[in-house]
């Protein structure tokens, strides 16, 4: 009898525990599952997108892009350009403070820009034209150019890796072989809660109460960064199904990049909203140093082989989530042009075979690297392998993880000499990158100094340099843009495979006023 009473009590306790479960997040905390985990905290050290997201929360920038793609002053209050277009004088806004309470000074800005420019392509171009960059006093600094450079402000407002975040001087003077030492102290709208950081599991951002936002309304990364929540928690949920279930149950409020097989499920959920967070240009990169792709005819064969619709169906499926685009510089953007894109627009396998033969291809193995842990790149690699086989190519499709691929792609040797060599890999670039060829490493045609694949086109590089100094909308700009894009189409640094849409999902019954940016920012949004 006594034993039965004990068992009954234990059963009631268990049921009570189950019924008492309530997994809802606190009202002023936003719980988000981001595209990756925050592991690196130094945004000048790594190009990892999630670190740039971290940067946007914790740090601030001199300029920032608005929704029209124009750089707007952010930390800068006013600036003027001398009549000879060589001297920029910047004045910082009032009220800028570090998270430790100290004021932001010009010295911090100068050191940060110099550090940022070491690794960043846009920064390197700017510094190559810079005679001096110095602080005049705590609020004013001067940039003196050797020659006029029309992309100065655009470079300072760069929105993707590496974003020119401003760090405290004591960290900004540290080298870039390692991440900076010391606490994460920014001047942005959120503070990083280092004591709650569990790398690979959780990172926490707390509202910086002393942040002074600009008066303008928020617009993309620009404008007033008004924070309406107390905390933002980034949770790592490795499994996508679990993450979607957690969003459904309200255990999390936001999913940064749900995988495409979850989109139909999310769209069916009445409590979930989705928006297009980014557009990604899929790319096929041949190795320009290795036969047969060191011959432009072989690269032209790749262009003729590709039917963008086939690739996009294989990668994403539903046509509602992709679009074809025959421009290296993105479609519906400020640099859109299809100059020279004839080879890309119409598939011609017979012509492709002929060009391959003319390029000297004689049946040797063509190594295509396929990263099985990146579904979209893997799908692209499979499609390429299948299409190459239709051309009679002897394909060696090698499955590996992304880590292995990134360690092999710096290898310039052909596979016949080095087993780790390669002919083709696939990747993608976000929209911010593809519409900024000056800062976008993938489209560089700087030969030995170019990105992996090492495309070489002095003609394209020259046209790009000239384009940077022209005013958009002018006849000279359009003409140079045509020249640049034609040169790219003739050199074929990579083959554009079309554009896919990337989404974010959120609980629309809880979150509103989300600014729809590729790097999700958590200011402006309101949580009920």
């Amino acid at each position: 009898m006594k034993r039965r009473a004990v068992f009954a009590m234990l059963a009631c306790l268990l049921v009570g525990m189950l019924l008492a479960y309530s997994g809802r997040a606190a009202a002023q905390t936003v719980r988000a599952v981001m595209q990756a985990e925050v592991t690196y905290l130094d945004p000048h050290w790594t190009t990892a997108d999630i670190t740039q997201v971290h940067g946007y929360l914790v740090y601030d920038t001199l300029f920032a892009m608005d929704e029209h793609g124009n750089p707007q002053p952010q930390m800068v209050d006013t600036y003027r350009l001398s009549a000879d277009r060589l001297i920029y004088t910047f004045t910082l806004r009032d009220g800028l403070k570090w998270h430790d309470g100290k004021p932001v000074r010009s010295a911090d800005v100068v050191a940060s820009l110099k550090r940022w420019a070491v690794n960043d392509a846009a920064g390197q171009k700017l510094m190559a034209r810079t005679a001096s960059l110095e602080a005049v006093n705590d609020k004013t600094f001067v940039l003196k150019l050797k020659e006029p450079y029309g992309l100065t402000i655009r470079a300072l407002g760069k929105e993707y890796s590496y974003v020119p975040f401003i760090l405290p001087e004591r960290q900004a003077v540290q080298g870039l072989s390692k991440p900076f030492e010391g606490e994460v102290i920014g001047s942005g709208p959120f503070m990083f809660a280092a004591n709650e950081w569990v790398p690979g599991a959780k990172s926490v951002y707390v509202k910086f109460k002393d942040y002074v936002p600009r008066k303008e309304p928020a617009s993309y990364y620009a404008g007033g960064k008004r924070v309406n929540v107390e905390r933002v928690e980034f949770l790592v949920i490795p499994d996508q199904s679990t993450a979607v279930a957690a969003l459904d149950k309200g255990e999390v409020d936001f999913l940064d990049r749900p995988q495409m097989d979850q989109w139909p499920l999310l769209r069916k959920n009445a409590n979930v909203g989705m928006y297009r967070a980014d557009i990604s240009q899929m790319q096929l990169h041949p190795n320009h140093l290795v036969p047969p792709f060191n011959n432009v005819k072989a690269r032209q064969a790749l262009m003729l082989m590709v039917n963008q619709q086939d690739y996009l169906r294989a990668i994403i499926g539903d046509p509602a989530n992709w679009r074809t685009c025959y421009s290296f510089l993105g479609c519906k953007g400020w640099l859109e042009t299809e100059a020279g894109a004839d080879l890309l627009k119409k598939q011609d396998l017979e012509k492709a075979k002929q060009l391959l033969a003319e390029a000297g291809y004689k049946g040797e193995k063509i190594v295509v690297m396929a990263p099985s842990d990146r579904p979209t790149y893997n799908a692209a690699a499979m499609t390429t392998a299948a299409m190459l086989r239709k051309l009679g190519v002897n394909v060696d499709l090698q499955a590996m993880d992304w880590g292995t691929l990134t360690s092999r792609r710096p290898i310039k040797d052909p596979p016949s000499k080095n087993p780790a060599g390669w002919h083709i890999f696939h990747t993608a670039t976000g929209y911010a990158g593809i519409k900024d060829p000056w800062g976008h490493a993938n489209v560089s045609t700087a030969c030995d100094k170019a990105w992996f694949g090492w495309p070489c086109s002095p003609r394209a590089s020259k046209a790009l340099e000239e384009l940077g100094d022209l005013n958009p909308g002018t006849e000279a700009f359009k003409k140079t843009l045509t020249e640049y894009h034609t040169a790219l189409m003739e050199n074929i640094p990579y083959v554009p495979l079309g554009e896919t849409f990337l989404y974010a999902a959120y609980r629309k019954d809880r979150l509103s006023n989300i600014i729809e940016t590729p790097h999700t920012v958590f200011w402006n949004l309101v949580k009920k």
Partner: protein
Amino acid sequence: MLAYILRRILATLPVMGIVVVFVFLLVRIAPGDPAAIIAGDYATPETIQKIRVGLGLDKPIHIQFQIYVMNLIRGDLGRSLHSQLPVRQLIQQRLEPTAALAVSTLTFAVCLAIPLGILAAWKAGSFIDRAVMVFAVGGFSIPAFWLGFLLIYTFSVKLDLLPVQGYVSFRQGFLPFIQHLILPTLTLGLIYMALLARIARASVLEVLQSDYIRTANAKGVRPISVLFVHALKNAAVPVVTTIGVGFALLIGGVVITESVFALPGLGRLTVDAVLQRDYSIIQGVTLIFSFVYALVNLLVDLSYTLFDPRIRY
């Protein structure tokens, strides 16, 4: 006994030494470059090389090994190549969820599997025996991740009784701690339970054929006493051995379960470290797991003396 324990502990030292060398070389031979992963997709080869130098990965391998061993002797497991945090701190952060899951799984599995195995042995050949064995085969065959998803769908999504994911430390409340552990424990425990139930059944069945059991029955001893006092004690050695050997199964299962339920444990730390080529963490975690496994085996061997007084060390 003390001498035996000391001898066993000393015997683990050469084993740990081999593990240290083996893991150090293996992670560096495997393809992948942590500097390239850190630098990110858009970094140039020059940037990657700078990072490689900054992290000391450009040094000759024997120099890297020397530095690693010297630090290890001082108890320093090094720093994560990626987060730059001490490996010891990262392991400490992740230890509690894994330990909680392992203990709850072990407790759950042992408490259910052994009575089930005994019941199956006692009713050998009957429907109950067949049902327990089907359960054992099924439990061992079901993939852990599939079971996890099924439990999430049933108890979290449809019935809204338990959380989908995450871990809450017992310091933040016993109730949420238990609630977050129930489904992961069921997921991992079922597989472990299946293994133990089979071994318990086989072991008890063999013992039940013994003369002293026949004598006990003939003397009118109650069946429950025969089973749990006489038979189980004599059948315990293989069962305890299986618990120890199954610990390796548990470690493997913990990785999957932690991923499905987003538990921030050592299993996920290891998987992430392998994917990111974070050599320091891989080395540190492997060392810890090896030591714990050696310790578990020692405890299993020592526990034999509790069940069989003839065993003396």
